[in-house]
């Protein structure tokens, strides 16, 4: 019952009191009055100390316009965007999202459901999240996956905190590759600060872990070694088993960063000895322009009680039918309170739903052939750029996934800027290095990119 209704039912409130009551607070004006007089205050405003400069003065300063005027203005604004073809990558990858993903995920049962976690009303959503977890488990070979984190960076931070908790003896260092992307590094540093850990880097040689340098840097005080495949430079890491074994020797957890498309092709992380897999699953289900993440987080069974975030499990209804429900919530903050090991009690449910639909629509074969294309297109594009005088591609003598670094004779900043003038965006990643990402959505423009690079390097 809303306040307005109660006032009318009570027959006590005149129109004046009804105006003062808020639809968002259940107290009647009489109750507010009683509370104020009990504490000896004259008004609710007296309880707040809002600086005059930011206090609302009754004017929104919004200019009134018709819908048509607003649409025209916004279309004009959008029209001023530069129309350029992106070969950017580095964390944001554009894959074609089949229309079935929009068609299903925009249904109101999914899009506006609140909350998706209530088993009595949300079996459909819970099952979709369970399917998402099952896909991640299948791709990683690990035993448990949660139904997503905010993004890969949060997942990495939680992985480090988990690694420190599960270790028998205390440790203080987390080792990450020097090429780790800045957003992952900075979120990890935030977590590390609270968990009293320090983040240190190890070098790469030719886009892969410098194993000797890593061996020098590891020690008994290392709680986690993090490696990526594909790496931030697009290379496929070749010595994951060695890195895993080295971490294991020092009782450090081995965390692998990857993504669901790459995992369809690469050796199963569980088979190479990964204890934790993190990554960004929104490479499927969302276009790159969303800039939003979907953190994947999978672990081996021994860490089950330490998993952050939500887990959907199966159960049985009273009449013996299969049902889906959140499970192991005793790990979480709303039950365990200050003893909880993570403050994340939510996930990216709707994005996970979209990713699950996308993966399901591709199927196992479709996902593998998409992954194969990511290898062949990058290799073909690198080979064509390599034919140009003044370009050496790929800069790293490795297999690549989606993207690669190319060395340029001219400064990379000039090359990137002149390519932008010609309508193509690439990343400048070193003084003489650009990074190029090719997927099925921009591969039709590779001929034009190659021609533009040739012009720029003349």
């Amino acid at each position, binding site marked *: 019952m809303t306040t307005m209704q109660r006032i009318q039912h009570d027959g006590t409130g005149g129109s004046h009191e009804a105006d003062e009551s808020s639809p968002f607070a259940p107290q009647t004006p009489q109750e507010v009055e009683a509370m104020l007089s009990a504490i000896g205050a004259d008004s609710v405003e007296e309880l707040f100390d809002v600086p005059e400069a930011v206090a609302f003065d009754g004017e929104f300063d919004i200019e009134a316009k018709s819908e048509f005027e607003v649409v025209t203005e916004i279309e004009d604004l959008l029209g001023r965007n530069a129309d350029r073809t992106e070969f950017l990558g580095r964390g944001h990858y554009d894959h074609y999202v089949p229309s079935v993903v929009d068609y299903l995920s925009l249904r109101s049962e999914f899009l506006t459901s609140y909350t998706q976690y209530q088993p009595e009303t949300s079996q459909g959503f819970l099952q979709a999240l369970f399917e998402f977890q099952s896909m991640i488990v299948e791709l990683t070979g690990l035993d448990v996956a949660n139904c997503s984190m905010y993004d890969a960076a949060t997942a990495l931070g939680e992985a480090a905190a988990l690694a420190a908790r599960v270790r*028998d003896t205390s440790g203080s260092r987390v080792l990450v590759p020097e090429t780790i992307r800045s957003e992952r590094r900075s979120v990890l540093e935030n977590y590390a600060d609270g968990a009293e850990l320090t983040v240190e880097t190890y070098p790469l040689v030719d886009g892969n872990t410098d194993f000797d340098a890593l061996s020098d840097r590891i020690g008994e005080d290392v709680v986690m070694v993090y490696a990526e495949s594909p790496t931030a430079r697009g290379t496929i890491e070749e010595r994951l088993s060695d890195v895993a074994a080295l971490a294991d020797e020092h009782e450090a957890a081995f965390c692998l960063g990857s993504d669901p498309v790459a995992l369809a092709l690469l050796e199963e992380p569980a088979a190479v000895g990964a204890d934790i897999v993190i990554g960004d699953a929104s490479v499927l289900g969302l276009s790159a322009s969303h800039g939003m993440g979907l953190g994947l987080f999978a672990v081996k069974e021994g860490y089950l009680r330490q998993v952050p975030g939500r887990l959907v499990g199966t159960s049985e209804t009273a009449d013996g039918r299969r049902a889906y429900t959140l499970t192991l919530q005793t790990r979480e903050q709303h*039950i365990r309170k200050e*003893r909880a090991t993570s403050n994340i009690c939510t996930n990216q449910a709707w994005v996970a739903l979209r990713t699950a639909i996308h993966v399901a629509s591709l199927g196992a074969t479709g996902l593998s052939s998409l992954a194969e294309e990511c290898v062949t297109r990058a290799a073909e594009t690198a080979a064509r750029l390599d034919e140009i005088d003044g370009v050496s591609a790929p800069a790293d003598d490795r297999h690549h996934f989606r993207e690669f670094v190319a060395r340029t004779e001219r400064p990379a900043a000039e090359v990137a800027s002149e390519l932008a003038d010609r309508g193509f965006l690439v990343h400048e990643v070193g003084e003489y290095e650009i990074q190029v990402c090719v997927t099925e959505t921009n591969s039709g423009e590779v001929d034009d990119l190659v021609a533009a690079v040739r012009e720029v390097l003349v």
Partner: protein
Amino acid sequence: MTYETPDELRYTDSHEWIDDRGDARRIGITDFAQDELGDVVFVELPAEGESLESGAACAVVESIKAVSDIYTPVSGTVTATNDAVLDQPELLNTDPYGEGWLFEIDGQVPEDALDADEYREQIE
């Protein structure tokens, strides 16, 4: 319902029991505690060799209803832990004074620990 409260044990307000076994004190949770918690699904134990002050939260018992901290009523060094309960947490329900014990610690039984009669009054 009546709960088992063996005469030879000492007890705490927070429903742990203490068994003075000569060289060490064995700690567990009482029959009343396991019944209140319901099905125990997970147990975390202190590490062997860890030194604890009495009153410190040193173990966790998780049931389908709640997560509870276990406080050691005895100060000292942990000399043994019952790893069987890690794999079979239900031992706390089926045999709280026997196979469901939690850990052993080498300090002395505190003077203010309850005897069986006092504890029975507590849970009545």
